Structure formats: structure tokens, C-alpha cells
């Protein structure tokens, strides 16, 4: 692949600026915990179950200690005390925290050393559960192998997990490498993870541990028949971001959409809450060897894809910086971008090529996720199918890693089985026909594509300078991304953000950060 002649010094500066921006936020993250982080700690310890109303036990526990003003010590502290006092298992300890007498006020023994000792074997078991799932995935992937890149990613969204599993199989049979089960629309805004298998959803299917298992089981079975490893995707985003990360980790998901910025901008989730949640979730994801997908592509659905192209690049640098701070290697960072320029603009294809190549080049090891047109599509499915053909061509010509296939029925309905088939067949044709095109392309240093790439990169650098100067929270409040303004203390979930006490205990986080035992 011949690179675009861009100035590496500008790229280096962008990366340094993004690192500084993330460092500013990290100070806040390190000083705080959230209800969802604490629930994730309990889930890591294997706490399971829900009451008759469907409220998960982890919520009842954490909410009780939040109400008592004691969650700043970390739920693990209270769990460890119950264990040290003789609870037979973490599950029994959690039930005592949730339902037993008065909430523990922390008076009297056991000592801190006793609490940590009581937790230690369970912490080791929790980490081992994540590691075993990761190793199983790695073994299956190595044994079966994956399809050539760009990996073909499709979405199923029936609302019924059993239909989803059937559709996932059919999509894989038609050539898909990656299956995402779209979540029920409102799920990002609810502060608990629903329980069990579900058959009714809105615009998608509820993300639950049982639903993850059902789809993984179908893919495990199907991949043996097809002789090709199949990847499963869900959404570690919204108010339960870290909990879904943990469930995804133990249920062997391959990719998780995981991007605080998406929740802030498009779901109005409180910035503090979700940036804290993102850090912990990425620690889990890094340990689990899951690829994250970030949502920069969405910026171009609200902001103009020509004028605001640089905001995608700037945000990718910031997302990379946050991911690095959480221990994710570049190989797990599926940064997102999209083919969203107005199709009526002359040379829009050239601008798309410029941006796609620029992203590929700036983030060489990252499994970049290339997203299809959604905004400038129409009910004319034949025209939309042609748009997807050009999108596929950019995808293969610029060596994108993951391509979410465009659907000719975008803007009409959630994809029908045949819509996915037609998209897969079309992509197979384009990818095969242009397999080595990227090796043949040389960029005219004085041409339109190089000029566009340089311009976008320069603007991204300028934006990163601004964001660094004002700070990430202020930039988000000003509307620096996606033309959407989100104040630091606005949005959903702020009440679940708690300052850590001096003696905050979280052995799961310590282990994920490589600290302690």
C-alpha cells in the first residue's frame, strides 16, 4: 500500500495532544467510581440472579450501599467483610448485603487484611473466568481461521433472540464473518441489565447474558459446519457499559461497541458517568481480548460529513488515547468512520477515499471499522445498492479491517434476510474483484485526494489543540463533536457517580491494572 504523502509530524502532534486530553480526564476517572462499575465488580465475583420484579441482585446490593452513602469504599469492601465474617460464597455474601438486616456500617472487625484475604481467591477465580473465555476464543479462532479482510459485518435485529440466532446462522451461511445483535433501542438508558432469554424488543433485542449465550451457541455450531470462525458483537455502551463488558468477556464475545462519546452525544448519558464506566469496561475488554468498536461514524449523521470530517479523526485520536490508558493494544481498537458524504456532491467518492486512506494510515495496526452510508440513502433500494457498491470499493481499496455492510433497505426497515444476502453477495464481488487494488494505487501528491487528506488532518490537529486548551468536558459541552452540546453535569446517570473514599477497595480493578496480587 502506497501511503498518502502526509506530514508525520502532524500525526505525532495529534497523538500527543490526544494523550494530554485523556490524561486530564483520567484524573477524574481515577478519583471516582460508579454504580455500574460496582455492579460489574459483583458480576465478576459471579453474583447472579434477579428478584421477582426482575431487579438484578447486583443492583439491589449496590443501590442499598449507595443510599447508605457507603459505596465510595467499593462494594468489594462490603462483600469482603461479609465473606470474612463467614458467608459461604460471594453469592451468599451478596444476598446478605442486599436483603440482610441493616446495611453494614463498617463498625468492628474484620480488619482490612482479613477482608482482602477473604476476597483474594474469588478475585483470582474472577480473572481466571475471563482468561479461560479468552483462551477458548483464541483456540477456536486459530483452529478454524477467519475470513479475509475486510471482515463482513452484518446486523440482526428481530427482537426475538431465537429468530436472531437463526438469522445469524443464515447470514454466516451467506458469507458474513461478524454478526451483531442490535440492542433494543432504549436499553442504553436503563440502569440494569435485563435477565434471561428475551423474545420481545424494540428495534432490536435486549442484551442479556442468556441471550449472549444463545447466539454464541448458534455460532459455535455453525462455524464448525462452515469451517470459518464466526464473530459475535454486542454493545458495551450506555448506563451498563462495564457490566456488558464483563458479560461479553465471560460469554466469549469478539467485539463490543464501546465508546463513551457515543453515549454522551447520542444518548445524552452523563459525561462523567460514562467516561468512568468506559475506563473500567476497557480494562475488562483488554483482559478479555475483545475488539472495541468506536462510534465516530455517527458524528456524520448529525454533523456534515464534508465540513466536520476532521472531528472524526480528532475523536479517533482521543479514543485511542483513552484505550491505551486502559491497557488496550492497538490490535483491539476498532476505530469507526463512515461513508456518509452527501452523494450529490461532485467528487464525493474522492473525499471518501481520502478520509478512508488517511484513517487506515494513521492507525495502521488498528482493526478499523468502516461504516456504510445511512443518511444519504433512500427508499430506492436499487440506488442504495449502487451506493453500497462504491462503499465496498473504498473499503477494499483502502484496506479497511471490518466493514459493516450497507443494506439496500437502509431507512426502510431492519434488514430482511434477503437484504443481508444481497449485501454479502455484492461485497464478495467487489472485494474479490479489487482484492489487490490497494497495492496498485499511488496518490498524486498534487491531486485532490492528497489535498483533502492534508486538510482534514490539519483541521483535526487544530481541533485537538482547542480541546486540549479547554479540556475534554468543556469541549463536549461546547458542541465540539457531532454539533451536539452536552454539559458535564447534564444527562442521565450522574447520580451514580461517587467519589472514591481513601480506603476504596476494588481488587478486580487492581488485578486488571496489574497491581496487587
Amino acid at each position, binding site marked *: 500500500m502506497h501511503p498518502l504523502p502526509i506530514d508525520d509530524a502532524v500525526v505525532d502532534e495529534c497523538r500527543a495532544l490526544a494523550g494530554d486530553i485523556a490524561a486530564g480526564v483520567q484524573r477524574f476517572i481515577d478519583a471516582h467510581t460508579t454504580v455500574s462499575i460496582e455492579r460489574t465488580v459483583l458480576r465478576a465475583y459471579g453474583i447472579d440472579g434477579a428478584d421477582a420484579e426482575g431487579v438484578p441482585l447486583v443492583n439491589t446490593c449496590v443501590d442499598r450501599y449507595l443510599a447508605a452513602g457507603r459505596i465510595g469504599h467499593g462494594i468489594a469492601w462490603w462483600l469482603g467483610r461479609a465473606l470474612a465474617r463467614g458467608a459461604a460464597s460471594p453469592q451468599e455474601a451478596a444476598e446478605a448485603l442486599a436483603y440482610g438486616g441493616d446495611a453494614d456500617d463498617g463498625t468492628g472487625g474484620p480488619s482490612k487484611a482479613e477482608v482482602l484475604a477473604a476476597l483474594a481467591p474469588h478475585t483470582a477465580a474472577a480473572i481466571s473466568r475471563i482468561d479461560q473465555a479468552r483462551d477458548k476464543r483464541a483456540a477456536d479462532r486459530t483452529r478454524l481461521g477467519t475470513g479475509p479482510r475486510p471482515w463482513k459485518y452484518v446486523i440482526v435485529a428481530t427482537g426475538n433472540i431465537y429468530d436472531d440466532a437463526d438469522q445469524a446462522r*443464515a447470514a454466516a451461511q451467506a458469507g458474513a464473518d461478524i454478526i451483531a445483535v442490535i440492542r433494543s433501542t432504549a436499553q442504553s*438508558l436503563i440502569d440494569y441489565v435485563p435477565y434471561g432469554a428475551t423474545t420481545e424488543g424494540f428495534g432490536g433485542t435486549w442484551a442479556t447474558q442468556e441471550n449472549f449465550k444463545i447466539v454464541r451457541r448458534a455460532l459455535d455450531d455453525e462455524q464448525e459446519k462452515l469451517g470459518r470462525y464466526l464473530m459475535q458483537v454486542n454493545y458495551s455502551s450506555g448506563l451498563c457499559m462495564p457490566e456488558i463488558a464483563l458479560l461479553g468477556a465471560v460469554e466469549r464475545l469478539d467485539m463490543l461497541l464501546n465508546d463513551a462519546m457515543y453515549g454522551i452525544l447520542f444518548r445524552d448519558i452523563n459525561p462523567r458517568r460514562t467516561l468512568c464506566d468506559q475506563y473500567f469496561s476497557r480494562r475488562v475488554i483488554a483482559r478479555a481480548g475483545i475488539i472495541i468498536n468506536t462510534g465516530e461514524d455517527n458524528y456524520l449523521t448529525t454533523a456534515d460529513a464534508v465540513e466536520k470530517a476532521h472531528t472524526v479523526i480528532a475523536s479517533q485520536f482521543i479514543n485511542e488515547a483513552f484505550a491505551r490508558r486502559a491497557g488496550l493494544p492497538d490490535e483491539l481498537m476498532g476505530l469507526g468512520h463512515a461513508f456518509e458524504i452527501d452523494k450529490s456532491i461532485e467528487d464525493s467518492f474522492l473525499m471518501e477515499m481520502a478520509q478512508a486512506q488517511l484513517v487506515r494510515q494513521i492507525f495502521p495496526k488498528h482493526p478499523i471499522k468502516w461504516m456504510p452510508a445511512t443518511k444519504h440513502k433512500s427508499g430506492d433500494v436499487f440506488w442504495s445498492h449502487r451506493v453500497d457498491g462504491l462503499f465496498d470499493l473504498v473499503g477494499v481499496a483502502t484496506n479497511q479491517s471490518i466493514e459493516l455492510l450497507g443494506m439496500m433497505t437502509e431507512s426502510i426497515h431492519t434488514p*430482511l434476510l434477503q437484504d443481508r444476502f444481497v449485501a454479502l453477495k455484492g461485497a464478495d464481488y467487489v472485494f474479490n474483484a479489487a482484492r489487490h487494488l490497494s497495492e496498485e494505487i499511488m496518490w498524486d501528491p498534487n491531486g485532490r485526494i492528497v489535498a483533502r487528506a492534508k486538510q482534514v488532518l490539519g483541521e483535526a490537529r487544530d481541533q485537538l489543540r482547542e480541546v486540549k486548551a479547554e479540556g475534554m468536558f468543556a469541549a463536549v459541552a461546547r458542541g465540539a463533536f457531532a454539533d451536539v452540546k452536552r454539559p458535564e453535569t447534564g444527562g442521565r446517570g450522574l447520580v451514580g457517580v461517587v467519589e472514591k473514599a481513601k480506603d476504596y477497595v476494588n481488587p478486580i480493578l487492581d488485578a486488571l491494572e496489574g497491581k496487587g496480587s
Partner: protein
Amino acid sequence: MTKPAPEIIRAYGDRKNDGRIQLSFTLPVAPSGRAKEAARRFAEQLGLKNVLVATTEKAGTNFSFFVVYGNADIALDFSEIVVPEVTVPEWGFKEINHIIHDQIARKVVVVGACTGSDAHTVGIDAILNMKGYAGDKGLEAYPWFDAYNLGAQVDNAALLARAKELRADAVLVSQVMTQRDLHIENSQQLIELARKAGMRDLLFLLGGPRIDHKLARELGYDAGFGPGTKPSQVASYIVDTLVKRKQVTER
């Protein structure tokens, strides 16, 4: 009223009135000669003649995808088809502001939201936000409009409460999600709530990719706007209706 002259129409493929149409569909069987014959019979039972199964594709181990052509015998009298369409004056940005200034003499207040569980703000953003759509400025950009975009997943009751508080002239509802007719149920509920709250005299507008004026009217809205609607069309409709209403009350 005299009945209009009949105007018989048929689908037009290669030649006038040949009735040639195409369709595509999937059957849950593996591709085979029998599968192809099943597709042909399927099309025949839809009433098509001279059926050509142009392709039988393997869309999965047990799924076949077909593209089929056939002649539809259906003839319609076009003169009998009546569809309520929104009549919107073709006013531009400046003209709309002038008309509000001259004839309403105060700012027109508009509140919009994606209601229910719908999280897709593309439509409401295109109409209300400064930037607008396809070069046509959004209502926020109009000096004589006060436009409030409440965003996504707004509860019907919350939308009405806000409309009351802001003394809104018009309420814009965007519904993108259409799975299992969710948009219909939720849209109707808003109108019922408005009636109960004595707020039905406000203008209620419904928009979305699967919305048209006919459906919106059936659901109890004043007007419906489908895909491709420009902000100036919505603005014109609101201003035109408010001015007409004002003339009626002043008479």
C-alpha cells in the same frame, strides 16, 4: 359534482399496459428445482401471469432468494383515487419570517421531539436544528420562530408538559422506528393525551420515513410529513395554518 372521466392504468414494463412487474422474496427452503417451482407458484398465487423466476439464489443452507417477473392483470381507475395531501405554500425563509412578522406579530413557538423509545433524531434535527436539511435552514435559524428540539426518547407526557410551559403553537413529533407498528401506537397515544389535557387546539405534526399525510390524519394529527421534507415546508405549513386560523377567529 360531475364524476371525472375514468382513467384506467396498468403497470408499465416494456409496453403500455403489459402489467410487467418484478418482485423479490425468500422462501425457507434450500435452492433446487422444486424451490424454483415453489417460487413460480407463489408468484402465480399472487395473481401474476407469465411468471419468470429470473434467479434462484442460495441465501443460506435452507433459504432461497428469488427475483421474479410476471404480468399483473390489475387495472385501476386512477380518477377514483383521492389522497389527502398537505397543501403547503411554497414560501422561502425570508417570506416566512415576513409573514409571521406582519400577520402574527409574535414569534411562533415550536416544540419537537422523537417520542417513546425512538432514539433516531436525524429527522427532527433536520427540521429544527440550525443547519437544516439539503441547504434549507432549520427552524432554529428563523428569527421569527422559537424552536425547541427536545431530542430523543421523550415521553409523550413530558413533551406535552414542555409544550404547555413554552406556550407552543405547534408540536412536532418524529417517529423513525417502525418495528411492529410501534410508531403508530405511540403517536396515537400523544393525541389522546393532548385531548385529555385540553391541548388538542395546538398544531400537531407527525414526521418520519414511514409517515405520510394520510396516515398522520388517521392518527389524529393535523399534518404528516414523509421523507425528503424540507424545514421550509414545515415552517410554511405551520405559519399558513396559524394565519388562516387567526383569520377565522377574527371574523
